[in-house]
């Protein structure tokens, strides 16, 4: 694992943040590059927050919300879903890789799924970094 690499994970208060809590209690291991930021809903993560994280040097950004249909605020995660396609496409336009962004649904009872998502993301970014041409 690259010690410099940082991954910002926006976790929904009602599901994935609770899952991260449970992962901690269950002593599940996940990469140390993950930095969790608790948000009240995945739908409140504006694309500019994702871009800002990348501009500040994050290797990747994840948004983790409730499964579709289970949003605490009824439709917040649907908003996140609509935005996520825009984010992935626009990142390419702005000179980043769409792989640097990931949206995943995690319920509060799925710490394993959360840890798996963290691992996959970390691995994917490591591959991306090794493929990066040296001059950029």
């Amino acid at each position, binding site marked *: 694992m690259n010690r410099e690499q940082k991954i910002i994970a926006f976790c929904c208060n009602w599901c994935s943040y609770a899952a991260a809590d449970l992962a901690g209690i269950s002593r599940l291991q996940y990469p140390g590059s993950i930095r969790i930021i608790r948000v009240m809903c995945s739908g409140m993560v504006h*694309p500019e927050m994702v*871009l800002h994280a990348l*501009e500040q040097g994050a290797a990747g950004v994840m948004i983790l919300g409730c499964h579709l249909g289970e949003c605490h605020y009824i439709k917040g995660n649907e908003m996140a879903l609509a935005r996520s396609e*825009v984010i992935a496409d*626009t990142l390419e336009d*702005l*000179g980043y890789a769409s792989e640097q962004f990931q949206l995943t649904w995690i319920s509060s009872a799925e710490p394993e799924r959360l840890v798996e998502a963290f691992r996959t993301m970390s691995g994917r970014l490591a591959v991306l970094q090794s493929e990066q041409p040296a001059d950029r």
Partner: protein
Amino acid sequence: MQPKLSFEWLHACSGCEIALLNGGEQLLDLLGQVEIVHFPLLMDHKYGGQQGEGAPLSLPEADIGLVSGGVAHTEHLLVLQEMRKQCRTLIALGTCATYGGIPAMRNEWSTADTLRTVFTAGTGDNDPVMPLAPAFLDRVYSIDEKIKVDVSLPGCPPQPQLIGAVIKALINKETLQLPQKSVCETCPTIREGEKKMAPVRRFLHNADYDCDQPVSEMRCLLEQGLVCMGPVTAGGCGGKDTPLCLRARVPCRGCYGPVRSGGNQLLDMMNALASNGIDYRAIVDRKSLLRFSGAHGLLKPARKKN
């Protein structure tokens, strides 16, 4: 003693200078209130040192400095730093100075690419046309990336009345509230709500309107399916009246830059469209939404794919 005014241009087209001169009677008032010490568009003024005497670059001291244009090469940078040193208050005038503007569209490619495709002699070899020209920087910068700016006044060009008002406020040491809302704020077109949006189409056909009726009888262009950048663009182009492009019944092109400084017009526009359930992929050349705000590292060469 009258305050001294200095007006320098960098990577710009002189449109901002002409906007100031276009102010009508307010210009006459202004000329009586300031002493212009440096203004390359209007008066000949040597930067010094060409004959080997004195400092290689020196500009006169001034109370109010206006700078139009972004920073593209080493000479721009030197002139800009000298301006900052000599001017008590420095105004970034125009979208090139505040957000990079049109010249910053070259940030979409690397400097090497630009030199190769644009600035070669066309003889097949890669010799630049102007071997003695100052070296390009790695990209086009807005001036606030290089020096401290006291007032940012975007626009392509900024509204003449607003330029005059800002200079006057500085002379009289008053504070002035600059417009902070989007173009839509003063747009009188009819909005029927997001449910009735038409699919995005290119501006190859006119918008639907009755030319005998005022703009306030026209349907919002974005709701007609034309990519109007009004929602993500700072307002002020038409003063308190209808925005200028809308007066001509064409969609806003985004020339005043993002509503908030630090905003990203491309991302905000895509987000606004997607949140309203519009197929943003129908926009063919999305990157061009940053046509006026490519500095601050927003426009970058595409990532090399393996």
